[in-house]
């Protein structure tokens, strides 16, 4: 299935939950509302014509310093899906507000989402509702802040941790 057909099929199914679709440099993307993301992911996985059985990547972007998007939703959680059976790809995105940075978890659909969501929580401070074990993945529990947020200064030092002497 080519990208346009994938997006058409998603539009047909998810209707008004799709906020926008675009195609840039051959990557087809659908932007979904927060309520629509998990049903859309489940549909992508289970529909025979789409059969996106692999969650390739799950990450996020902080748009708070992006020219023209400073006032919009601050984050976007990005899902890259791939279908082994049909050899096609699609990208789904969910805008997330700063004050309410919560997205429903996809770890019930793909086990790997567990770690990927932990990494997004670690780096961006976006919570995943229903996640079984939302700990930091790469950093340590005592770390303050979420370093991939644009307002986290690159040269900020963290207190040293270790066993108390």
């Amino acid at each position: 299935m080519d990208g346009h057909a994938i997006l058409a099929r998603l539009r047909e199914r998810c209707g008004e939950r799709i906020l926008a679709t675009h195609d840039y440099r051959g990557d087809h993307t659908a932007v979904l509302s927060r309520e629509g993301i998990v049903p859309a992911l489940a549909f992508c996985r289970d529909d025979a014509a789409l059969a996106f059985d692999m969650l390739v990547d799950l990450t996020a972007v902080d748009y708070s310093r992006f020219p023209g998007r400073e006032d919009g939703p601050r984050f976007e959680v990005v899902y890259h899906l791939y279908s082994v059976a049909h050899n096609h790809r699609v990208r789904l995105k969910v805008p997330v507000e700063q004050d309410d940075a919560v997205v429903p978890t996809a770890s019930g659909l793909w086990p790997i989402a567990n770690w990927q969501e932990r990494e997004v929580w670690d780096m961006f401070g976006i919570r995943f509702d229903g996640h079984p074990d939302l700990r930091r993945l790469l950093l340590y529990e005592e770390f303050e802040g979420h370093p991939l947020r644009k307002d986290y200064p690159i040269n900020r030092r963290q207190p040293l941790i270790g066993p108390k002497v």
Partner: protein
Amino acid sequence: MAEKRTRELFLGEGSSPDGTQHLYVNFGPAHPAMHGIIRIFAELDGETVVKTDVEIGYLHRAFEKDCEAGPYNNAIPYTDRLNYVSPLINNFAYSSAIEKLLGIEITDRCKYIRVIMSEISRICDHLTCVGAGSMELGAFTVFLYMIKAREFLWELVEDVTGARLTISYGRVGGVKADLPAGFDLKVKKAFAETRQVLEEVHTLVTGNRIFMDRMVGVGALSREETIAWGITGPLLRAVGVPFDLRKTQPYWAYDRIPFDIALGKNGDNFDRYLVRMAEMEQSMRIAEQALDGLPGGAIQVDWEGKAIDPAAYVDLGKQGKTEGLLLVPIRLSPNLQGQDPGAHARVNAQDKRVTLPTKAEAYGSIEGLMNHFMLVMEGYGIRPPPGEAYFAAEGANGELGFYVVSDGTDRPYRVRCRPPCMNPVAAIPRMIEGEMVADIIPTFGSVNMIGGELDR
């Protein structure tokens, strides 16, 4: 307070009536069998693994944050350190992601060079993985043989890039330099050595009783589970799924080079070993064919006649004596072969927005000088239009993806690296729970965890 039984006093709280209790053991972060810094916290019942928790992040060094801090080409040295056993693939995959974002096409010769160097790196990676994995099972000879073969290949890498590990050879829009003269002969020689080593290793361990007992049926995942965990590369091919980005979504010149996908069946450690062994042979096949079909003619450059010293060239340029300077070839050191105008044009995209002009042009003409400054000045440089792109290459461990967002400035707004070895590492508990402690070692070896790309 109930009086404690002697057994409990001796064995601690929670011992079961038959006097046993689960034991908690740390593997790592600094364990001889952990080839990177990673901690596997295991709950053991006797020798059986009941539950494990994998803790990563000990090598986290803010790769993605650092990429945002500098211009596009500045991230290339950081990508060297992702998968440090096959850094060339990282370089090229990152460059290709930016090229996709820019919408530019690289030259044919550059595509072939990327293919050749990627395949050499892939062999290095598999050699290291199989060698280290076998060593942990007691086959130290295999390790020494394979490291010997890797040494021959790293000499090739050194010949081309000038470095062994932190090579920084890729560039957005091309590669740093052309291949050195006589490279194909050197490759032939190194591959002959590697083939001999592979042959010896096959004789030593494939079918060896101890090796088979530790590998066959151990650490297996089913086809469905492997896909659900997002595992790609040799581990996915070991369950019989013919997913290889070089075939399924060909990039660079892979669609022009015939090769086979090595497939396993059972998805256990032994099949993963076989897939890696077969892939090395296929990689050599690809590299040889690519060298044969290398477009762009001879890589030998004409040094004869009036070649001058680079310093003298720069001096003339500084004095403004640029008349006719562009016609004078520079005598370059062997490490910089390919920086002369002819070779430069063959390996770099003809796009002034991304490719630095040759030094001869930068010092010899005002246009070249302006072009150079436009690319290195802060706020200028490579500026892709606002947008996003995801590019995936077949790394040695699987799909190595770069998701890049541009805001139109000279710095990437966001670079996300999809590390291929994170998925199998996340699935390690699934692979080893219910198996024996000793099975952790070959399973961990077959996952080929690379700290640099796992923790970024």
